[in-house]
């Protein structure tokens, strides 16, 4: 409520540098969406449960609704906009499409970022582990079948589109 001085935040998002002045209370999600106009990061619950806002901060999957923009000063942030290379979908994105792992698409960026972070750790071997990786995000449309298959496809190196 009190007038608070803005703070300077510098870092990178998807490899591109940013340098912005922000209100200290601005969430990372609103910073990405409103300041940087990266609107792929969505807000589904704003209390850290649904996972739609998940981004990767310095390698870790993070709820952008629960983090403040000032906290990413000096950090490397990755969002859904950074997954495809020159318009070519990453293997996980291709798997989502092939397996109909998205319908309304609102939760999709959060799933993509959560799973991307998890797959880098290379811990998914079976369906139970795939479900575990996905269980931090909520999807109301798909029933998770295509999502589970997509995680398994990528974990097992299947990348046929």
């Amino acid at each position: 409520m009190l007038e608070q001085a803005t703070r300077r935040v510098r870092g990178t998002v998807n490899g591109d540098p940013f340098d912005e002045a922000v209100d200290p209370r601005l969430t990372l999600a609103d910073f990405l969406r409103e300041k940087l106009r990266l609107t792929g990061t969505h807000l589904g619950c704003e209390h850290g449960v649904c996972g739609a806002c998940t981004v990767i901060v310095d390698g870790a999957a993070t709820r952008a609704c629960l983090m403040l923009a000032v906290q990413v000063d000096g950090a490397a942030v990755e969002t859904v906009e950074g997954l495809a290379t020159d318009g070519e979908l990453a293997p996980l994105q291709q798997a989502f499409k092939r397996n109909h792992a998205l319908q309304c698409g609102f939760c999709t960026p959060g799933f993509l970022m959560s799973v991307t972070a998890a797959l880098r750790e290379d811990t998914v071997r079976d369906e139970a582990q795939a479900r575990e990786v996905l269980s931090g995000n909520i999807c109301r449309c798909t029933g998770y079948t295509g999502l589970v298959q997509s995680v398994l496809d990528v974990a097992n190196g299947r990348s046929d589109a």
Partner: protein
Amino acid sequence: MDGPMPEAMIGARLPRREDQRLLTGQGRYLDDLDLPDALAAAFLRSPHAHARITAFDASEALALPGVVAVFSGADLMEIQKPLAPKVQHPQLRDYPRLPMPPEELHYVGEALAVVIAESRYIAEDALELIDVDYEVLPAVGSTAAALRPGGPLVHTGDESNVAVLLTQSAGNAAEALSTAPHTLSEEFFVMRGGGHSMEPRAVAARFEPATGQLTIWDTTQSPHYARQQLSMIYEMAEDDLRVIAPPDVGGGFGPKAQFYGEEVVIPWVAKRLRRAVKWVEDRQENFVSAMMERSQTHQVEVGFDADGRLLAVKDVIEHDQGAYCAGLQVPSITTSTVPGPYKVPNIDIELRACYTNMVPTSSVRGAGRPQAVFVMERMMDRIAAHLGLDPAEVRRRNLIQADEFPYQVGIMFRDGSPLTYDSGNFPALLEGAVERIGYDEARREQVRLREQGRYLGIGLAVYVEGCGLGPYEGAKIRLTNRGRLLVTLAAAGQGQGYETIYAQIAADGLGLDMAYIDVTTGDTARIPFGQGTFASRITATCGPAVFEAAKQMRARLLDTAAVLLGCDVSEVDFDGNHACLGGDREKSVSLQQLAQVANIGKHGITLPRGITAGLETASYFSPERAAYASGAHAALVEVDPETGGITILKYVIGHDCGTVINPLLVDGQVLGGFAHGLGNAMYEEAVYDDEATPQATSYLDYALVSSAEVPPVELFHIHSSSPLNPLGVKGAGEGGTVPPPAAIANAVEDALRPLGARVTRAPVTPARIVDALLAAASVADSVAEKKKVS
């Protein structure tokens, strides 16, 4: 030309066109739209379930830097007009639901003021500075309290809390029950809960003083319905109101098909302030102000003979309408869904819809059907248990057979026509589910495990789902000036894949490759008439409209090409994006050339002889009555009687929605619907306390299923084409949601039968299972004995 095209796209398993943008963060949801200088809105909502506003002071809020305006309900009297119930009845005692009531508030979450500010952060700060004095009034927190004589009244000064009493009957149920060899009765309580689209509701608006036009972006499932309501409330011509459902809407599931006060307030405020205004509901608001479906209580009695054949069903339904009647669609669907796939000679259904001081209820995916199916399917199991018969066998004996269509149930459906099942094969669905669940083996395993003190249960549920409701849905197809075919739907999607499905249907009607076809949806400025996406209706209404408009367009394109090629139309067909004479690409005209001649034309120059100007077609399809999809679910579970925990070991779904346009997408609808139904079966509960205060207002208190809760499903389809539309299609959006509460409840009671637990409430939670076990006297003993042993 009416025959199937060489490479039929209808039925093709295609990934979606929508996916590329949604997977790369390029979706265009309402909050993503760039509306320069738009102000943010936040609503002040009632903290009381029933209260009168005695004083309102926003001066401190208005003084906050960045606040542009504050409007209370009393400041906007010109738009305080009732939001009419969607489905009415002459006997409905309707209480006006105002966009933002100026005096009395009737549920926690009802909006009473709106703050408009430079940012949502500031707007929410300002909400806390508004000073409101309330006179708190007694509130009604359940249907039982609402119907209790002498209890508090939902609306001050009313005579009772009853919204409407309705009956549906066939034959003479009272007489049949009095003479039936066997009768059973039970009370069931079925909770449903919210839609919980991952994107909450949102509205944005901008007024153009130069044209007098108000443009409204709305996450609605029904843009044309919203425009019509706004046209009446604002007293503006519909042409001056443009309602756009953005290309991407993050789920609907029913609540977004309704019309809300916020949709009236935001555009009006934008018009008054001459500034774009945007409101995006947050999740906490969504919990208390988006319509939900909540609870029904059923008092059911069935009469049957010694073979388990149904003689009569009587069901008295208490339905929670909430603080206002947003429509009678849900209870009315429940009343007609009770008989289900069974032959019931005598039916008596009584509905008591009542007001409570809770957020109004309306359709949530399944819309009144899960409750009816729960009641009927629970009673089928009870009949089997009573007679010592197998539950599958009792169903077999009562199912309507495949050669009995059209089948008249004897009561009315919500579309205003006699409940008449058009087609289906219920026995095939049941047998398919029974076989795939491994029924006989599971029964043997059940016996074996019981000897070890483990409790396996099998649950079956068969249902019929009225879908594809009228009055109509339409489509326009135009050859654009750049030579592409643009299919324009009034219908707005929320993830169903309209841009893909309707391109498939149009491709077959046109005999053209999908690559030349685009689909656009949900914008009232692009097509004048429409109804909306609800009641699993779009494929069965919009589908035939697109197919017909496409066939007409094919004829128009080929006629035009024949004139230009100087030949008979029978000699012309498409090759790629060219219409060719005798298959010769050298003698052809491109779609772009056709547009050049018939649409663009040459200024002032007479059209070539035989060319009809304007390559555009339109078709509206009005179904004669609803089509009926159907299905059978089978669940194999193990229940832990100590904890009440349920483990789903296997789940089978048999589904029949007639012709399938895209199997990949239909499977997605069914499996997604199942997950929602599983939430209703085991987890989701919109809890309100006795004072009607909501107790579940975050995802910490209200559990949505994750990948850890939803088991793999074995899904099979049968295809009973509907005779009611030229594509033979039926709805697929809700069927998966309808039977899981019944299947799970049946499986749990089946598992615990030796312990005598009776499952009468959904969701079936561990706490309720333990309660049911404790209530069974025999159980208390066995638990005590078991403890002694361990």
